[in-house]
């Protein structure tokens, strides 16, 4: 495939897609309007996904197969999460979409725009105002409340995949709760690195039964999954799996007695809002080793800054220069 010159078909498809959006927003005179079904998916598909979700909630941590649809975005961009969101979205819902904690990165903006266009629902960046939060690889810093739903985008739902390539066998291992292999992986980590070096997608045991991949969230976020008042749904579009953690479910990271699970710690607080005990992103400032650490959760950081919290690199503080 030649990346430089798009094929005529692709070009016309793109043009069509752009037109479709404008038609939705404002139909030019004399042209037939394209109307999407609410939240893009047809009602039968939504029913099918809802059935899978209900089953997933009934069996916490169990991967329920579902007939994942083609979505107008590539696999790996959140097709699973988008389908779950589409299936549970109602007209009164308020949607927030984050990508690695941020409301304003490509993936988050695109998916938010997608549901604004196809469902016309209200969107927000404020965690506490949202009823549904679709997330890629983070859990918001602020505590979630009962009634909220967190929808994770999952690339590879099978925690045993890299230890056992056969799906037939991993299903058997789940069925028999035969999870010794998971600990072999953790053992290897300690043997090679002196500590459990898995820092994201850290495997957890859900409700004392199924071992589950929490999607590639940093292990820093693992404790937030435990006993959360919010409903947590996981959608893997390419792998065609949905799984769930119902509210107030016990979620325990796997570990060894003498090497217990620990989360990352950051030496300094957020450079913009001064928050401690939050997950920080490293931002490179120049090519001479300059860097800053800021909250990965942009809404949390903005809210704190609006409340008057400052960090060591907060912009407008007059006496902050050197």
């Amino acid at each position, binding site marked *: 495939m030649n990346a430089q010159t798009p094929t005529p078909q692709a070009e016309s498809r793109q043009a069509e897609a752009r037109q479709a959006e404008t038609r939705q927003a404002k139909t030019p005179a004399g042209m037939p309007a394209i109307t999407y079904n609410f939240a893009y998916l047809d009602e039968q598909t939504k029913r099918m996904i809802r059935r899978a979700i209900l089953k997933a909630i009934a069996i916490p941590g169990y991967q329920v197969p579902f007939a994942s649809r083609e979505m107008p975005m590539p696999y790996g961009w959140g097709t699973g999460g988008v389908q779950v969101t589409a299936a549970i979205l109602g007209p009164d819902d308020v949607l927030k979409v984050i990508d690695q904690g941020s409301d304003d990165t490509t993936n988050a903006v695109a998916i938010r725009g997608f549901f604004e266009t196809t469902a016309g629902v209200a969107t927000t960046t404020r965690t506490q105002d949202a009823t549904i939060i679709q997330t890629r690889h983070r859990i918001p810093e602020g505590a979630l409340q009962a009634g909220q739903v967190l929808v994770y985008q999952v690339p590879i739902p099978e925690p045993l995949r890299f230890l056992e390539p056969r799906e037939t066998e991993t299903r058997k291992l789940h069925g*028999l709760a*035969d999870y*010794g292999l998971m*600990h*072999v992986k953790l053992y290897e980590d300690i043997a090679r690195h002196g500590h459990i070096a898995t820092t994201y997608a850290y495997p957890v045991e859900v409700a004392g039964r199924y071992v589950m991949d929490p999607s590639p969230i940093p292990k820093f976020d693992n404790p937030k999954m435990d006993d959360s008042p919010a409903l947590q749904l996981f959608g893997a579009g390419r792998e065609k799996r949905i799984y769930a953690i119902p509210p107030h479910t016990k979620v325990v990271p796997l570990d*060894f007695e*003498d090497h217990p699970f620990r989360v990352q710690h950051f030496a300094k607080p957020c450079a913009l809002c001064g928050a401690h005990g939050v997950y920080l992103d490293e931002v490179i400032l120049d090519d001479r080793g300059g860097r800053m650490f800021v909250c990965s959760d942009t809404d949390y950081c903005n809210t704190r800054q609006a409340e008057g919290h400052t960090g060591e690199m907060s912009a407008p503080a007059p006496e902050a220069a050197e």
Partner: protein
Amino acid sequence: MTGDAPLLVADKLTRYYGARLGCRDVSLTLHPGEVLAIVGESGSGKSTLLGLLSTELAPSAGRVSYRMRDGEMRDLADLSEGERRLLLRTDWGFVRQHAEQGLRMAVSAGGNVGERLMAVGWRNYAGIREEAIDWLGRVEIQADRIDDDPRAFSGGMRQRLQIARNLVTRPRLVFMDEPTGGLDVSVQARLLDLIRSLVADLGLAVVIVTHDLAVARLLSHRIMVMKDGAVIEEGLTDQVLDDPREPYTQLLVSSVLAA
């Protein structure tokens, strides 16, 4: 362990691959601490029989029973999948001819030995490691190789590692499929010494499949000679090898090259 009660009883085991015969009407009884060799040429049904005994293959007819650790005799076909797997990785061992099939090649030696322990619930890293080092020592692998991949091991070391991995849960019965195949003779000799002393020390019952009569003579108490899927002669190892009755057994014995 009472010597009288059999550990494993096979009754008229038969296995067809489609229309083709794998093995037919094989019955045997194995007692605790007993080493049984199954010999015969390629294609005689040795490996099929081993597969049937170890539940890797389902018999077309016949049955296998095993005395579980609680003393109860169970028909292996009646075990649930979970029970079968637990049996396979606690009370049984399986040493394969090709170590790559019996080991996790991308996992360190310590992880290989520790896997069974973790599978039965060990959750203490230091404890698992201590046990792994102990077992590596018993199979003459230096403790400082514990974090190396089996890929970095020689053929003989891989085979010894496989033995350690199997014995770490103190099984009572070990199946061996040509454990010395493909190794040069000096390595073979040391491995055989090791197996013999471990078998004696731990009181293991062993079913060993081999085409090497010298291996059978060195390790086994009893021997079964197979041809065309059926057992044609069986008895005490020395007796059968020194005084073979069947023409085919006589041929086998006389085919061994004198060193």
